[in-house]
Each structure stands twice: as C-alpha cells, then as structure tokens.
C-alpha cells in the first residue's frame, strides 16, 4: 500500500495524485467518445464524465497499490 508520493520534496497523499491522473484519463476518454451519439443513450451525458472519473480514480489507485511496491529506484 502506497499512501504518499514524493513530488519534488513535498510528500502528497497518493489519493490526490491518482485523482489528478484519473481526471486527465477521463477527459481524454471523453474526447475520444465525443463522436458517439451519447444523448440518445443517456438522460445526462455528464453522468458518463462522472462515472469515468471515479472508475479511473479507483482503477489507477488499485493498480498503483498492486504495482508500485515492485517499482524500485535502483
């Protein structure tokens, strides 16, 4: 379990960093899905943004918990 990340000497809660990465991923995915006729499938297309963001946040955080302990500086 990795709970904090060193960003140039400032240790930040890992959750915050994963949220930022999740947000960026959600934004990119949303751009890619722009062409789909979403309004025909959803009452509110914003719901997709919301779900994508939380899913990516959780996904990145779970993946980091599994993979980060194996990443060693040298």
């Amino acid at each position: 379990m990795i709970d904090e990340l060193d960003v140039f000497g400032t240790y930040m809660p890992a959750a915050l960093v994963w949220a930022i990465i999740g947000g960026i991923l959600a934004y990119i995915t949303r751009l890619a899905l722009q062409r789909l006729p979403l309004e025909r499938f959803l009452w509110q297309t914003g719901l997709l943004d919301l779900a994508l963001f939380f899913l990516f946040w959780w996904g990145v955080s779970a993946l980091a918990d599994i993979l980060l302990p194996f990443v060693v500086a040298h």
Partner: protein
Amino acid sequence: MNFENFRKTFFSLALLGLALLALYALWLRYEVRPTTRDGKVKADIVQVSPDVGGWVSSVLVRDNQAVKKGDVLLVIDQSRYQLARDEAEENLETQQTSLAQAIRENNRNHNLSTEVDTETIERGQEKVDLLKLAVAQAKTALGVAQLNLDRTVLRAPVNGIVSNMTLQPGDYLTAGHGIMAMVDTDSLRVEGYFEETKIPAVHVGDKAEVRLMGVADPIEGHVESIAAGVVDREREDAPNTLDNVNPSFTWVRLAQRIPVRIAIDHVPDNLPLIVGTTATIDIEPRPGEPSVRRSWPW
C-alpha cells in the same frame, strides 16, 4: 419513443451505479482501512548522568558509537575517591584496634571479677559493644567510599547508541546532571498516530506494514499495544478549582489521534532505523477476530 426512454433510464442508472461503486471502493480504501501517514520510528532515550562528580579523565566512546550494556563510557578522575577510600580503610583499622584493646580490658575485668567492681565491668562491656558498632559503621563507610570509587567508571546502562555527546577529557561533571543521550536500541519500535475513527479496526497482534520515506521495502511488524488515553484538550485539569472547559466549537470537529505501538519483527537488510524518521503504517486486520461494528461517516 417509449423504448428510447427506457434505454436512457437504463444506461443512466447503470452509469450512476458504476460511479457509486467506484466511489465506495475508494472510500473503503482511503477512509476505512486502518492506515496512517503519521508514524514515527521511536526508541527509549536514556539520559546518561554520572553518580559522582569530578574531572573527566578519559572518554572511551565517540559520538554515534554503538555500545553494549556495561561497556565503559568514560572515567572520572579517581584521585579524590581513592583517597577517601584509603581514609575509610584507615578509620576501620583504627576502630578495630580500639575494639581489640577494649575486648582485652573487658576479659581482664571479667577474670578479676572478685576484685573489680560491677560498674567498671559494665562500663567495659559497654565500651566493647559501642566499639563493635563503630567498626560496623566504619565498614559501611568503607563500602560507600568503594562504591563512589567504582562509580567514577561510568558504564552504559543499556545496549544502545551514544548520541549528542561532545564530552572531552577535562570537562567537569556534576553528579546527577545529564551528559549525553543514549538511544536504547533494544526498545526500537514504530509508533503511529491513528485517527480515533480507525482505532476500532486496530487490534493487538494485527500485522503491520511500515514504510519509511524513500525506502521501497516495508518493515514488517505487529501491533503491540494501543494507548489507553490521550489528554482531553477541551478541559484543563486543575485540582480544587472550577472546571475550565473551552467554549463549544460545534461546526467542524477533527478526529483525535491515538498512538499505536508497532513492534518490529523484520527490518530490510542494511536499513538503519533512525529515531524520529517518518513512517507510513498500514494495518492488516486479521480475518475472524472479534470486531467492533463501525459506522459510516457519522
């Protein structure tokens, strides 16, 4: 139209459900799991101080040197204590000589009891008894003098590392004043401050994973004990006066933090444990242990 409405409702609810599920997983991971970033490597610190005063005649350890219990740290100038011991020895001999003479006199008095009056015999006996006590006192004084002499050799009270020591031969030490700190390496441990909301999930014996800043491999340990109490900051405890309770601050409240002591089971190779360094602690609850029902965020 009706079919499209149904489709829209279905997909909207499905997405909402997914979002809530992910949120729930995140909340479990970051808010419910007993974990803290406020851990510290700790050890008991012994403040080493001499039992007798005097010049430092030799210093046998350097700053940051590891020593075993009983190792000599420094020697205080012994001349005065040596002389005091000699004096006590001589005093003992004096008393013993007086006692021997008193015993001889007393025996003589007893042998001539028909000619010596009772008072003289009693006086002689009293003298013998008093001198026996005086000899015992002189022996005790000699013991004290010897003890003082022995205490001029200052030994390590625990296995540990000498820390913050700048002592040089020639410094003058006063009895009872701390001269250096020793980190008791046998008492090295990690202490984490857990929010009170997470304490119900922490049990003595649970496995703990401790990560020091910048170290990839975790230290393995287990929960040794949980603090029995912390100070109530809303109230000042002064006896015999009225209660001093802070005005209420009801809008935002913060969880108190409770120290939890983690015993270290295994340290990664070559990793030095330095008292005061920051650690992140994750506690792995054991399945099937008696647990407290925890509330949601209320």
